[in-house]
């Protein structure tokens, strides 16, 4: 028993140090590393509390998501471009301090009002063991009692995903139609340069009547410039020209 308490305090200490590092570090990447450190230690605390599933999900969802944060920071932010990270901003510091104290007070009040241990629910160690471990128990509760919230969350996430895709591809409908038209069009380079007055808008007929014309009935256009109608993007991907 004493061992697990010791381990808990160690993990809690490192986790808090990591969280401090997030706030104190000047380099945004170092902040992100501190965040990951904190998350991993919280996951380890879950493990000590025998919530293996929760621990692994914490690692996958939180520690895994911070990697995306790191990527964005590396791509978008250069540390030298962050003047506010270097100068002292008393107003910001004061705001952060006040908000932090308010949050701390709220959490403390909630703990004092309700206690750290709520009323015991229907799940005891025996009932959990009877279902076959806490992972199964969690799954069964989530997909029976909390079915509606789970589904709603899933729909919400789906909507967010679709929204992100729409935001990331801002081209207009007309442009998309142009892309579709381009995919369904055969483009020929000018055989004799751009000064040819009348482009032949049909392929020369083959000598053999039984051979189908090349292109299978798709319209044929002549490209006015080198990159018009010439790039067939991979996997139907639209790429800005």
């Amino acid at each position, binding site marked *: 028993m004493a061992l697990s308490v010791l381990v808990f305090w160690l993990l809690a200490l490192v986790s808090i140090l990591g969280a401090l590092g997030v706030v104190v570090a000047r*380099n945004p*990447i*170092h902040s992100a*590393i501190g965040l*990951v450190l904190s998350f*991993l230690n919280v996951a380890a605390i879950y493990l000590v509390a025998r919530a*293996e*599933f929760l621990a*692994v*999900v914490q*690692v*996958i969802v939180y*520690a*895994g998501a911070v*990697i*995306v944060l*790191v*990527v964005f920071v*590396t*791509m978008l932010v250069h540390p030298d471009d962050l003047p506010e990270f270097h100068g002292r901003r008393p107003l910001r510091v004061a705001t952060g301090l006040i908000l932090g104290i308010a949050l701390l007070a709220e959490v403390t009040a909630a703990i004092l009002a309700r206690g750290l241990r709520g009323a015991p629910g229907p799940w005891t160690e025996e009932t959990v063991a009877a279902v076959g*471990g806490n*992972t199964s128990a969690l799954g069964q509760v989530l997909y029976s009692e909390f079915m509606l919230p789970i589904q709603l969350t899933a729909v919400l996430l789906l909507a967010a995903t679709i929204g992100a895709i729409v935001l990331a591809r801002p081209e207009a409908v007309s442009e998309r139609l142009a892309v579709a038209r381009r995919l369904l069009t055969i483009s020929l380079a000018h055989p004799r340069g751009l000064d040819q007055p009348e482009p032949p808008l049909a392929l020369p007929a083959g000598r053999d009547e039984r051979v189908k014309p090349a292109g299978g009935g798709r319209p044929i256009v002549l490209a006015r410039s080198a990159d018009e109608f010439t790039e067939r*993007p*991979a*996997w139907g*991907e639209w790429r800005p020209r």
Partner: protein
Amino acid sequence: MDWQRLLVSYLVGFVLLNVLLGLMAYMTWFERRVLARLQHRVGPNRTGPFGLLQPIADGIKLLAKEDIVPANADRLVFLVAPLLSFALAPLGAAVIPFGETLHLFGVDVPLLVADINVAVLYVLALGSVGVYGIILGGYASGNRYSLLGALRSTAQVISYELVLGLSLVGVLILSGSLSLQDILREQQRTLVIGPLTLPNWYILSQPLAFALFLIAAVAETNRAPFDLPEAETELVAGYFTEYSGFRFSFYFLAEYINMIVVSLLAATLFLGGIDGPIADGVWWLALKALFFLFFYVWLRATLPRFRYDQLMGLAWKVLLPLALLNIALTGLVRLWGIGAL
């Protein structure tokens, strides 16, 4: 009693770690020899019989090299990142069962380090943390090529991790458990299809998931034809451009250990692991894993590298829908009890 079990676990883990490190060294020899054969070359054959001492010579060479830190590197992160990659790589092997419990000197010795009841998720979580070694190393080098390599690698690993995880869901539905031991136990049963009596290996009931897992695993370990992060024609060497000496070798070793762990995992999840036609045991697992390792080398010798947009398109537009389809089909089969596996 608890202390005893802990000690046994540590000992098994210690042995496993050393075996893995030795195997990893000889994996480099194996790869070079097989690759040479496939390309009509001879391969390393000067150091010792059949070149068997080559990995040792390589190791000594790498350890003796100078450890250079670039002037504009983020020093601490630069120094720690390869260690992170290297330390996380063998952890996945901790949940793979290598055999039945042994009884030695009156002590039960389970032939796996940790029987975690969420073993499959644990391996996936390790994968998602393992990317940090790559991205931090690339960022900390202070080199554009390294950074580009690291960003590519991150995007690739995150995308393929999704496919990897989803491809395993079918197996989880059929076995009804996240523990590798339970999954093995399910596979040791027999599957009767008409006149045929087959082992209930999941490669038979989940062929699509197996293919997806294999493709995603190759991409996840950054191996050819998915070795975009280290595309030398475009990026010098990718995220470890600036690394030298033993820090470089840490990335190198991590890649090979990852290959071995993924091969063991594939053998355990889809090919019945230690289950075999006669005399179940760790040798069957080794044989199956060796097949996967050979497959890795074979791929590298055969296929050209993907273009980057093809790589991402393949993951998101082909493999991911197929994985979802596999989950839906498996769910329906399970729901209606077809085959009653």
